[in-house]
């Protein structure tokens, strides 16, 4: 179990995160917040790249600082900017990272082909990575993070730059591989984690805003999300009065999904979704 115990991170006078308290047990956690909210900082503290200014992070009740390299051996990490050696093929790269992880040659020989199969890269295992697409590189990144079967998997914006097909593939890979370990995925794309995360963690104003299941978070907007058809001539005035979360073009107007606390004539109440909550909670950041 990973415990983030009243952690604050400051850089000089700037506070990036304040009094973060979380307990993570095996399962998939989606860390959802707009860019610049402190997702990467939190992840960097979990993977020991930077230390909390106040508070501590504990693994099974023991501060990770005391565990040192033993803790690092339990962590698989995919950084936001995943670096790789262009001249290496995926097999060589995984061997290299596996060696740094202290995995024996025999274990690597066993694990690498299996992992490459799982991320659908086995057929190109001998191909230089400089010839790979963004999606393929990201899959190498996921494979390297999974080397050594880590207890904690930290993936920082793993779907950034991927096309919808690759993102769907990524979700299916992750669902398969996320058993019996803590998986923490940061993203600002709601659809990437809505269906696979057991819990969603939302950061707002440097603090945890929500750390709950999707249905629980969505309840916060129960009775406030509506859909209706708005004719073109009324659209501008309507948009200025309500928080629109999505819109679909129709003949002579638009089908609009919006959030409001006051009843609107002709609008039909719909069940709130995570994206509605995200857009509602971060409306200031989104509008900026």
């Amino acid at each position: 179990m990973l415990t983030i115990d009243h952690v604050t991170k400051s850089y000089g006078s700037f506070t990036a995160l304040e009094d973060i308290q979380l307990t993570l047990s095996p399962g998939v956690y989606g860390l959802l917040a707009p860019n610049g909210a402190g997702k990467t900082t939190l992840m960097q503290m979990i993977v020991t790249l930077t230390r909390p200014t106040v508070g501590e992070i504990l693994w099974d009740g023991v501060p990770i600082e005391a565990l040192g390299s033993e803790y690092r051996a339990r962590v698989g990490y995919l950084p936001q900017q995943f670096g790789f050696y262009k001249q290496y093929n995926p097999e060589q790269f995984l061997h290299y990272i596996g060696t740094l992880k202290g995995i024996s040659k025999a274990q690597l020989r066993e694990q690498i082909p299996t992992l490459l199969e799982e991320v659908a890269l086995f057929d190109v295992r001998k191909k230089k990575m400089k010839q790979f697409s963004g999606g393929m590189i990201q899959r190498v990144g996921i494979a390297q993070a999974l080397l050594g079967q880590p207890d904690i998997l930290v993936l920082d914006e793993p779907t950034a730059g991927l096309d919808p097909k690759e993102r769907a593939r990524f979700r299916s890979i992750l669902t398969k591989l996320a058993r019996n370990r803590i998986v923490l995925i940061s993203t600002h794309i709601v659809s990437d984690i809505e269906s696979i995360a057991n819990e969603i963690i939302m950061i707002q104003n440097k603090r945890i805003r929500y750390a709950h299941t999707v249905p629980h978070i969505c309840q916060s907007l129960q009775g406030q999300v509506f859909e209706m058809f708005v004719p073109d001539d009324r659209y501008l005035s309507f948009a200025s009065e309500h928080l629109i979360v999505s819109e679909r073009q129709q003949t002579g107007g638009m089908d609009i999904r919006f959030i409001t606390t006051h009843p609107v004539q002709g609008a039909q109440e719909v069940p709130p979704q995570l994206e509605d909550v995200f857009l509602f909670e971060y409306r200031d950041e989104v509008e900026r």
Partner: protein
Amino acid sequence: MEKNRPIPYPSDEKKEKSIHFILNEMKKPMSRTQLFKQLWTVIGWRLITQQLIIYCISAIALIHLIVTNAASLSESLNSNGLSILVGIPLLFASFLLLTFWRKKEAGTYELEMTTRYTSMQVMAAHLLVLVSAVLVIQTSLFACSALLFQMPSFWIVALLMNGSILILTFGHFFLMVHARFYLWRVLWWGIWLGGNGFMMRLNINEMTLHVGELIVATFLLCALYVLFYQEVMRLCMRVERGDYYAYD
């Protein structure tokens, strides 16, 4: 005036957990030598190919130096030998910089600092082995020249030592920059520059060394090596213990 804030004492549960961890789970801390041995056993040979080119070129240059200068070691170095003596440390420094640049370019630094053995530890282990090899060759060269030929001239010893110290200092400098310990960087470069300045002031090419002076020179090198080893392993121990953060 700001009020004194109360000292945040740990809860009883926290204290119990810490005691349990110390008594039952905490491993006996490794010594520096044990850590180095572990680093080398687990990763040393497996990643050596990455720096193979440094070893190969250094070895070729050294062999060439010995072959071409062995007979005249007691007098003075020919220009070819001199350029090699100056060239080896520079070559070494260039390859280290190249390795570092390659990591920066590839953007793998962040990833390699979160693994069980970090890239800094790997680099330290390789540096220590390389520096040890240089020291062994250096001492052997001194011993061979003293036994087989006449005593080497002060100038040659000075050059050889200069080269070795440059390797030591640059190696350490490189790690310290990697670790952002600026004080050490200044200190090591200070040693090297000071040593060079001292030799330039002496400017005695014809001076012949006595056995005692040769022993002192070797001893000085060994002492520097021990200091180098201690400092490099201290950094490795900090990384091992979890007392070092790449971005702090």
